[in-house]
């Protein structure tokens, strides 16, 4: 019996880890639902509106990107462009070297994971430190985030306490409050000693050049209060047209991500600090990164570029809850990752073409998406693409025989009649591997094939 890669990953997941992932994802989803429906009469209308704004922005990047750039430069921001991951890493290194900077503090950005920035900077003698509590722990452990919003959803307090003790962050203490305090004490001096701060951007506004950054912990703010140079790493798709589009998007982002009315810190940065302000960056750089996004824009799945990285689709996904984030072998896990990760690989699509197949197409991800991305449709389009490109799909049962049966009524009738034999066959002799595996843990129900057809026939005979 061959399995899909994601099935194998799910099977390897330890009991503790599975419990963390399931519990965390489920509670995240339930809190979100109660808040969203408590606050808004018709949240679906808002999702469609937000989706419309983001789709418009994505389809007009050709005018919005230069508009944002012009405003930023007028505001005193230096704008850089990075077609590839390597270009983006080189751009950040170039900015740091020009200032003689060797220590970087980072707020959470998925894009920096995507381009492998931390590792790259390490190889070039720059110490880059994650400051989001979850990302900090991931970095200590040499691990990878397993969730877009909650990077250590797969870890429990004992593992974290052990890791803090091992790395000298603080004595072993499992209390989540003690863990948080230890990180607070450890990291605040790192901010003060750093030469530059790097953040992502949740939104970039074309009309004003504003960069919007949200965090709950305040780590991004600390980067922008303690260091003299601010580097923003942002994907080219994160544009919104107008400042006034932000109220809706911030509302939906906070509710969808963490079930809050508003994230604790929402920072609107349009340039270096004011001259009279003693704290904060004198220099601000924005690095616009493509890294495969223009190829996605050119294809038939460009709706995925609307994504605002809230993680709601992960929390609701039955596959994610079973398999955890690492099973997706990608920076972006869950339903969003099943679409985005293979797409961002461009010519390497085949390497992750199995991900869109690891879905029951139940549609829950589309239902919760704050920007109304039709994720199940996109998964189907990617499955079709994998078929067109002849990508082999191990672990997916061959449907060739089934399609012959299903398209020939006589063959179908014969098969339904022959199915009766299954009732008398010992489990080990079942002809289909998937059924044999199923029988290992369950009893097959009695064969009832053909009964619907009989029922329909009887019904039609009635006057």
């Amino acid at each position: 019996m061959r399995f899909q890669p994601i099935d194998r990953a799910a099977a390897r997941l330890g009991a503790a880890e599975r419990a963390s992932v399931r519990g965390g994802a489920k509670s995240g989803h339930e809190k979100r639902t109660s808040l969203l429906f408590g606050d808004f009469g018709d949240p679906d209308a808002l999702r469609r509106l937000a989706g419309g704004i983001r789709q418009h922005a994505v389809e007009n990047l050709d005018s919005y990107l230069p508009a944002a750039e012009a405003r930023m430069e007028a505001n005193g921001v230096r704008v850089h462009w990075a077609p590839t991951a390597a270009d983006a890493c080189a751009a950040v290194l170039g900015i740091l070297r020009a200032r003689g900077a060797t220590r970087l503090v980072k707020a959470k950005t998925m894009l920096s994971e995507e381009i492998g920035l931390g590792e790259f900077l390490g190889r070039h003698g720059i110490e880059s430190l994650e400051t989001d509590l979850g990302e900090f722990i991931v970095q200590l452990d040499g691990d990878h985030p397993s969730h877009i919003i909650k990077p250590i959803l797969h870890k429990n307090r004992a593992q974290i306490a052990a890791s803090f003790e091992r790395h000298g962050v603080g004595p072993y203490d499992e209390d989540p409050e003690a863990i948080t305090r230890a990180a607070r004490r450890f990291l605040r001096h790192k901010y003060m000693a750093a030469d530059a701060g790097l953040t992502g951007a949740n939104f970039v506004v074309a009309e004003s050049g504003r960069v919007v950054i949200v965090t709950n912990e305040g780590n991004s703010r600390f980067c922008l209060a303690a260091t003299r140079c601010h580097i923003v790493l942002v994907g080219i798709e994160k544009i919104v047209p107008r400042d006034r589009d932000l109220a809706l998007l911030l509302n939906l982002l906070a509710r969808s991500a963490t079930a809050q009315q508003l994230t604790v810190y929402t920072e609107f940065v349009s340039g270096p600090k004011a001259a009279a302000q003693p704290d904060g960056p004198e220099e601000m750089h924005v690095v616009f990164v493509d890294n495969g996004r223009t190829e996605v824009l050119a294809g038939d799945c460009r709706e995925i570029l609307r994504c605002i990285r809230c993680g709601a689709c992960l929390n609701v996904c039955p596959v994610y809850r079973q398999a955890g984030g690492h099973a997706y072998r990608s920076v972006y896990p869950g339903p969003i990752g099943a679409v985005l990760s293979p797409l961002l690989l461009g010519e390497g699509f085949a390497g992750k073409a199995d991900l869109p197949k690891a879905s029951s197409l139940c549609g829950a991800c589309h239902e919760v998406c704050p920007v109304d991305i039709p994720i199940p449709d996109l998964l189907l389009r990617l499955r079709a693409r994998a078929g067109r490109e002849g990508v082999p799909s191990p672990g997916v049962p061959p449907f060739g025989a089934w399609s012959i049966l299903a398209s020939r009524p006589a063959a179908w009738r014969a098969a339904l009649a022959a199915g009766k034999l299954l009732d008398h066959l010992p489990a080990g002799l079942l002809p289909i591997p998937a059924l044999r595996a199923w029988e290992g843990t369950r009893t097959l129900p009695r064969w009832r094939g053909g009964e619907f057809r009989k029922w329909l026939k009887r019904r039609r005979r009635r006057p």
Partner: protein
Amino acid sequence: MAEAEAPAAMNPREAILSRVRGALAPLGARAPLPETASQGSPASGDPKAEFASRLRLAGGELLSSPGEIPGRLAAGGWTRGYCDPSLWPALGPVFGRGFVVEREFDQGRLDDYEFGITRAAGAIAETGTIIINDALTSRRLAALAPWVHIAVLRRCDILATLPEAIAALGGDPNVIWCTGPSKTADVEGILIQGVHGPGVQIALVL
């Protein structure tokens, strides 16, 4: 996509923008920009009362007169802190003995400050949010690093809704909305207050 392939000599900006243009060229009509929802409902009743109740929901606290500050700080056992010098003439007299309040923030002694008192530019009633900008904040660090932050704002600067607050962003290079104390739920989903920023967020509305 041969036409979008950038020649090696092309600068990175042009490389990306030409690929964007190439990707969008085949689209017929582009998605129109929908009008955003109405500017929210105007505040019902007293914005200060609404702000106070939302602030509490977010885990923050409200004080209504300078005289309440020493009692609140003493209750938490916080005696050393910083106060924006421009607020000192109004607030200084309320501090008795037992408090050490500096009007200069020495970032080399970050951990010596248990509280920071700074000006805020305003607040948002709908969400219980304090608005801080570069123009009115004496030090970004003083509003962030101490365990307790007291933001001083005028009642007339409380805005009703998020859309109003967006419209009021203005030209300040750095505006930050703070909604309650610094928070995390990274460890097993358990809510902990006071990660990098204040664990106690107080608004003093004058």
